[in-house]
């Protein structure tokens, strides 16, 4: 039986199937569907911190939150004008946000973080919204909560390193969360004072009384900021002390929709948490298109908003160009504790005390003179730039880190340091999300010259050393002997074989 009839039949059947498949694909294209484009194109992120390579695209740390990072999402809405003309894109975080019943106001399970206009396939979402609370109490849509009285601002940032610094800090906090169409979520519970008013640089923002982290104030023309606090978002200082409300489902996305900076601190989780971001295609009433094949897309992400506790019992012993650190792991160390960092004041790098201290004086502005830090006192062990219990500032992390070790260690060396200079040293922990926790106890010591074994050996007249290859003429003797022994072995083996053959 010939194969040709069978082949023809098979080809015909295949063609029919293909045609049917094509028709089916066309039919599918007419249904509404939404897809998050692939990661290179669909999720675009610009890291603000110095460690972008250590975080995945869908991981957020406290720094990302404080710096008010935004993530841009690009989705693909399919279905043609009939779909894009009737439905728009919304972004929600929470659980089962694809269900209409979950997207009622900002319920406990889902929180709206973005609404786009019709035919818009791009959305920018603030990290603060992604990590903030899923729900707020208070009024309904567009009613806005009543703002509370602003809290008292913290003390101003410690004097900047330039000639002006934040000396104020007694300003009252926010003006109170005024009721607004955007809701009271713009307020912050008096956490932030407006800081010193006498400077355009450091001290612009007072140190938060309740805020557990400290980050530098704006960089002024007179030197890097001291320990002021980062400017608040656009809503700084306005606060609802008891109630905040959602921004309204139909309100335009704006800066005011962004969670306040306080969520970066109040949403403290020292171990990573997971959430899911939903992009849904809905009409004005929040309903999904009927018979939609895929009317929502999901993007899971993780966030960690708190640094690990500091190690305890930190001590610093004398070393050469280094201080030998010893410590114990904090009992509440999180599972994602990554490493310990050493902080030195004056900063590492060697040189004299004054040179080292000058390094911490910041980059002066045009009209500022460099101000040297006072040397670390012999009597009072205290750093000029970091304090126990505080989270190190960006400047401290930039200038004063003098080593790090893995989290499994309980000892290490801080350096390179200048011998004869007294240093204040401390430690902080860092987690896998690159969050840095508060500073440990501060201890002081002075590196000195030591006599190591090799130095003692050389002082005793020893000739050895200089590298593994520094062996001189002895090498030839040794190799010659080696070859001779090898040759003797081979000769012996050959003779043994010859003897065996003769016997057999």
């Amino acid at each position, binding site marked *: 039986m010939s194969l040709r009839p069978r082949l023809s039949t098979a080809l015909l059947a295949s063609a029919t199937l293909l045609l049917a498949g094509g028709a089916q694909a066309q039919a599918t294209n007419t249904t509404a569907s939404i897809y998050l484009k692939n990661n290179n194109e669909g999720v675009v992120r610009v890291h603000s911190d110095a460690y972008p390579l250590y975080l995945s695209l869908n991981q957020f740390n406290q720094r990302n939150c404080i710096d008010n990072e935004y993530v841009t999402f690009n989705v693909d809405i399919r279905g043609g004008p009939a779909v894009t003309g009737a439905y728009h894109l919304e972004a929600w975080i929470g659980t089962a946000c694809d269900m209409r019943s979950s997207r009622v106001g900002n319920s406990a399970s889902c929180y709206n973080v973005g609404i786009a206009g019709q035919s818009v396939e791009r959305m920018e979402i603030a990290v603060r919204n992604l990590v903030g609370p899923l729900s707020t109490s208070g009024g309904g849509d567009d009613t806005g909560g009543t703002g509370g009285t602003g809290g008292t601002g913290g003390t101003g940032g410690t004097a900047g390193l330039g000639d002006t610094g934040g000396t104020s800090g007694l300003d009252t906090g926010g003006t109170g969360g005024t009721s607004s169409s955007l809701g009271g979520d713009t307020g912050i519970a008096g956490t932030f004072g407006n800081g010193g008013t006498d400077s355009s640089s450091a001290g612009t923002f007072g140190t938060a009384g309740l805020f557990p982290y400290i980050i530098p104030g704006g960089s002024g023309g007179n030197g890097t900021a001291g320990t002021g606090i980062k400017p608040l978002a656009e809503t700084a200082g306005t606060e609802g002390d008891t109630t905040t409300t959602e921004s309204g489902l139909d309100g335009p996305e704006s800066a005011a929709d962004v969670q306040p900076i306080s969520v970066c601190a109040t949403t403290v989780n020292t171990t990573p948490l997971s959430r899911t971001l939903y992009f849904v295609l809905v009409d004005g009433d929040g309903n999904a298109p009927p018979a939609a094949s895929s009317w929502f897309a999901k993007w899971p992400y993780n966030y960690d908003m708190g640094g690990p506790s500091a190690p305890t019992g930190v001590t610093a*012993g*004398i*070393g*050469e160009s*280094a*201080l*030998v650190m010893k410590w114990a792991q904090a009992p509440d160390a999180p599972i994602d504790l990554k490493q310990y960092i050493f902080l030195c004041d004056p900063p590492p790098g060697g040189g004299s005390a004054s040179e080292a201290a000058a390094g911490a004086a910041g980059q002066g502005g045009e009209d500022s003179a460099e101000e040297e830090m006072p040397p670390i006192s012999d009597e009072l062990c205290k750093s000029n730039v970091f304090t126990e219990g505080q989270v190190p500032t960006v400047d401290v992390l930039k200038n004063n880190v003098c080593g790090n070790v893995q989290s499994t260690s309980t000892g*290490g*060396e801080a350096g390179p340091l200048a011998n004869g200079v007294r240093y204040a040293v401390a430690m902080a922990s860092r987690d896998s999300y690159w969050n840095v926790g508060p500073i440990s106890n501060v201890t002081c010591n002075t590196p*000195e*010259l*030591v*006599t*190591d*074994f*090799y*130095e*003692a*050996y*050389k*002082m*005793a*007249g*020893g*000739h*050895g*050393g*200089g*590298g*593994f*290859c*520094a*062996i*001189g003429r*002895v*090498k030839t*003797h*040794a190799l010659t*002997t*080696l070859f001779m*022994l*090898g040759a*003797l*072995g081979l000769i*012996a*083996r050959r*003779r*043994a074989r010859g003897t065996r053959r003769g016997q057999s």
Partner: protein
Amino acid sequence: MRNLVGTLLGAGALLAATSARAQGVDEFGAYGGLENHGYIRSKQEVAFEVRFGPYRPNVDQGVAGSPYKTIFGDDTRWQGGAELDWQIYRIPKLLSLGPGFGFGYTHSAATAPLASGDGMSAQETTLGIIPMHLVAAFRFDYLADRTPIPLCPYAKLGLGYALWWSSIGEHSTEVDHKPGRGASYGYVWALGVFLRLDPLDSSAAANADASLGINHAGLFIEWFNSSLNGFGTNSGMEVGTNTWVAGLGLEI
């Protein structure tokens, strides 16, 4: 005399009869004579040793003062290592001769004194050594193979070579921009004795031979001497030692 001959002949007859039976190893062990003291052995080619013992390098020889003792004190430092001997020339039940290569590792550490002499720092200074040797190993098997005494005396003679390095804290040390690490050469010799454990359980020994090819297993102890001073030139750090070494040995 007649009795002795008779005994030997009897033993020979027994041996012949035993070898005529089927031999092998199954789940119950060796049979057919293999279980009886291992008269029939697989081919023996190498000896392998796992070595352990104290190691105090003779650094203080050939230099003024005693830098090693000053820094590291008198505490005993230990070494661990291994050696493989190729029994290239072998007269069964008499002796074997062949090259062997061994290596070890030892490490000394102590807190370094302050250069000012005012006490000790908190920083650790170390000396790490990887001693190696290439020797001709002579093993005398006669006693163990032909008498009830399960001892095999042996001797080794050859070249020694060691890599060493020193550090201070977390860094390697240097003096006048010369790093504190190097290599040392010299000769080594050792005298020791190997105690076969086969007689303790001849059936197990036979099984090990039949199934794994292990001819003999035992313990050894030796006196090991290495002089790594560049054959007397003092061109390198003398990190040789005079010490005893013990361990487990296998002849395969």
